[in-house]
């Protein structure tokens, strides 16, 4: 029923080939490595665009195409083909990954120009692009898994790009291990899917669910396992702790992987598995809860951070919380989650690039307390970052307004107490977002100069500012374009079967205009508080004040996430390891060595009879002979 396309494989093959060449190539490639990497990413973007236009040329129900490559694994009835699938959902990601990816490649040419390992950096970026494309193009959970861990590997390599610093290497490891915990969920999901439906492809599982092959318990387990996977990859509660540390990587990496694309893979996974969550109500509720908690969690951490990248990372966590929340709200939510995902991809990537640009001009300083008044010195960065700022806090008509507003709307529409709770959380989140983003703006670009003595801020070169400008244009227009006549929702409709017209007719808790007004009020409150605290005339101390409430301290410690993980998992794990090492040494090997030394002891006891005196041996011979004779005599009596 689906068409085929012979081009899909090139999407993955081009960046993968480029990564291989760059990794295996000699130092001679250093001069052109960044160009090869950027061209590969651009080529993938062009292929993506061609596929997109080809897709638009087909009727909505025939837009999905597949490309079977080869049989990957076949044992008994466990049959997984290496097949690529491109439908309306994947094309969104393909364009986001390759589009934003290419911009970030261009940006990195300048950003990394002083690093002698720039070729390796571009190799890793290409590897990431290839893995991420595999993640969204795989037609089965197992193919997705390969991309899923592939992006995890690329993320590990890029976070630890400067791994000569122990803290950065630790951050990379932490990210990988947290992702692995999520991967357990994905593994289990594949197993459950296979046992229940005999298939691990998306279409096979969807058909199985529809045919009612699985019990509701099994479906909820499947949903929970998928959620665990999403939680790990998307830095959601309770596996969120790695994202802040992941900012150890170069800033373009934070923009691409830890803001725009990889961390949203969890949203993709849940949206892709909509057929499971639509019928697994408990799992769906869990999705909502995770999203709601993370939304606030990230926002609260964001308020307390002085490190510009960590503040943005907390914001990413919170915004993905919005998306996850939306995916948990049933058929209407997926498309809105996707919309927020795409707009977020634009404005957050843009803001990260802006942060990178600021750092570039400020000797890699990340502490916002040492910024201030930069708007005059870095005008382009200021304007693009500012546009992203307006988009994220949701000022109309910027992108975030459209996408976030819709999520607040459907949260309120969830019905009953659930609707009110979720609606309040999303509104509260919007207010906090407005506060901490305004704080970032004010501390960085306004106020007085609080620079270090050797700082000479300057605008970044064109190679860096042009991608920022393009992303800023996206931040302005994307939401408006997507929302024009609901075209985005309708575009995705064949995937999610979310009948949008039905949604329109549904009774709203509050009319949309009131919701928008509420949201804007929340934003206004947040911005006002920020201006009151950090605005004109307020002095910002160079060191974070220590005499703050216990709540601020807790927020600065990332709401104790690391302390909790340490106390619950790391310490007991270390103790267990130590205990097992002792058991191995003393008990198990002890038993083995015990047998050995017992043999030796017995032998050395018996050895004493060997005196070396010939006559005593003779005596024993005679005693033995007499003994035998006596025994015979006694026996024969």
């Amino acid at each position, binding site marked *: 029923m689906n068409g085929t396309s012979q081009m899909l494989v090139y999407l993955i093959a081009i960046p993968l080939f480029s990564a291989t060449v760059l990794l295996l190539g000699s130092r001679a490639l250093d001069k052109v490595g960044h160009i090869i990497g950027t061209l590969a990413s651009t080529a993938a973007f062009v292929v993506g665009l061609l596929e997109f236009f080809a897709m638009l040329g087909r009727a909505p129900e025939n837009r999905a195409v597949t490309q079977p490559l080869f049989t990957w694994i076949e044992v008994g009835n466990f049959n997984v083909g290496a097949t690529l699938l491109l439908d309306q959902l994947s094309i969104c990601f393909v364009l986001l990954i390759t589009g934003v990816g290419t911009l970030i490649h261009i940006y990195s040419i300048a950003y990394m120009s002083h690093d002698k390992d720039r070729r390796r950096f571009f190799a890793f970026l290409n590897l990431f692009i290839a893995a991420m494309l595999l993640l969204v193009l795989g037609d089965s959970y197992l193919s997705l898994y390969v991309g899923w861990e592939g992006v995890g590997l690329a993320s590990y390599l890029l976070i630890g790009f400067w791994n000569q610093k122990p803290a950065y290497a630790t951050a990379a490891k932490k990210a990988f291990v947290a992702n692995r915990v999520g991967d357990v969920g994905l593994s289990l999901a594949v197993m459950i899917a296979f046992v229940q439906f005999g298939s691990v492809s998306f279409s096979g599982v969807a058909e199985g669910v529809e045919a009612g092959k699985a019990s509701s318990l099994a479906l909820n387990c499947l949903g929970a396992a998928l959620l665990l996977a999403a939680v790990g990859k998307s830095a959601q509660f309770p596996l969120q702790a790695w994202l802040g540390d992941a900012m150890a990587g170069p800033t373009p990496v934070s923009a691409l992987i830890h803001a725009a694309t990889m961390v949203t893979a969890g949203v993709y996974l849940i949206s892709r598995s909509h057929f499971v969550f639509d019928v697994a109500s408990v799992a769906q509720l869990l999705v909502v809860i995770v999203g709601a908690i993370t939304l606030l969690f990230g926002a609260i951490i964001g308020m307390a951070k002085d490190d510009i990248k960590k503040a943005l990372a907390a914001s990413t966590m919170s915004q993905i919380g919005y998306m996850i929340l939306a995916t948990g709200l049933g058929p209407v939510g997926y498309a809105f989650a996707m919309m927020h995902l795409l707009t977020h991809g634009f404005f957050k990537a843009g803001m990260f690039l802006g942060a990178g640009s600021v750092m570039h001009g400020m000797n890699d300083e990340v502490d916002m307390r040492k910024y201030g008044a930069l708007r005059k010195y870095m005008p382009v960065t200021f304007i693009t970052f500012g546009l992203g700022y307006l988009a994220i806090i949701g000022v109309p008509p910027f992108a975030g307004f459209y996408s976030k507003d819709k999520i607040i709307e459907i949260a309120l529409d969830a019905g009953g107490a659930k609707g009110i709770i979720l609606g309040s959380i999303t509104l509260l989140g919007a207010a906090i977002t407005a506060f901490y983003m305004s704080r970032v703006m004010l501390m960085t670009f306004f106020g007085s100069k609080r620079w270090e003595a050797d700082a000479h801020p300057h605008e970044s070169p064109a190679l860096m500012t042009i991608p920022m400008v393009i992303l800023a244009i996206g931040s302005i227009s994307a939401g408006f374009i997507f929302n024009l006549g609901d075209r985005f929702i309708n575009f995705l409709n064949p995937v999610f079967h979310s009948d949008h017209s039905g949604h329109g007719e549904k009774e709203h808790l509050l009319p949309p205009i009131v919701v928008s007004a509420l949201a804007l009020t929340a934003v206004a409150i947040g911005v006002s508080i920020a201006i009151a605290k950090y605005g004109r005339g307020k002095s910002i101390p160079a060191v974070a004040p220590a005499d703050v409430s216990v709540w601020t301290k807790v927020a600065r410690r990332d709401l104790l996430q690391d302390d909790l993980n340490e106390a619950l998992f790391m310490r007991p794990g270390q103790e267990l390891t130590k205990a097992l090492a002792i058991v191995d040494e003393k008990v198990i090997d002890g038993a083995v060595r015990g047998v050995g030394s017992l043999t030796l002891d017995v032998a050395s006891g018996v*050895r004493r009879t*060997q*005196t*070396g005196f*010939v*006559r005593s041996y003779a*005596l024993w011979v*005679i005693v033995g002979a007499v003994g035998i004779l006596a025994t015979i005599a006694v026996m024969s009596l």
Partner: protein
Amino acid sequence: MSLDNYLYLSALLFTIGAAGVLIRRNAIVVFMCIELMLNASNLAFVTFARMNGSIDGQLFAFFTMVVAACEVVVGLAIIVTIYRSRRSASVDDARLLKL
């Protein structure tokens, strides 16, 4: 004369030999006592052959004599060598095989 007397003589000779092995220290004397024990058993073999009317016992006696002859050759050679190197023929002094 009863054949039993030969057996008594054999037992007596064997006991003397055994006692000599246990009591005497001089290797040569010990050696001679062993020969005495062998010959005591030879006497018993021959006696039993006579008693049972079979030739097997006499056959064994010849075996024993051959073995004893070999033993004398090897044994005396060892004793002489030990005496040469250690200036002593006491069996108690030659306790080199102890661990």
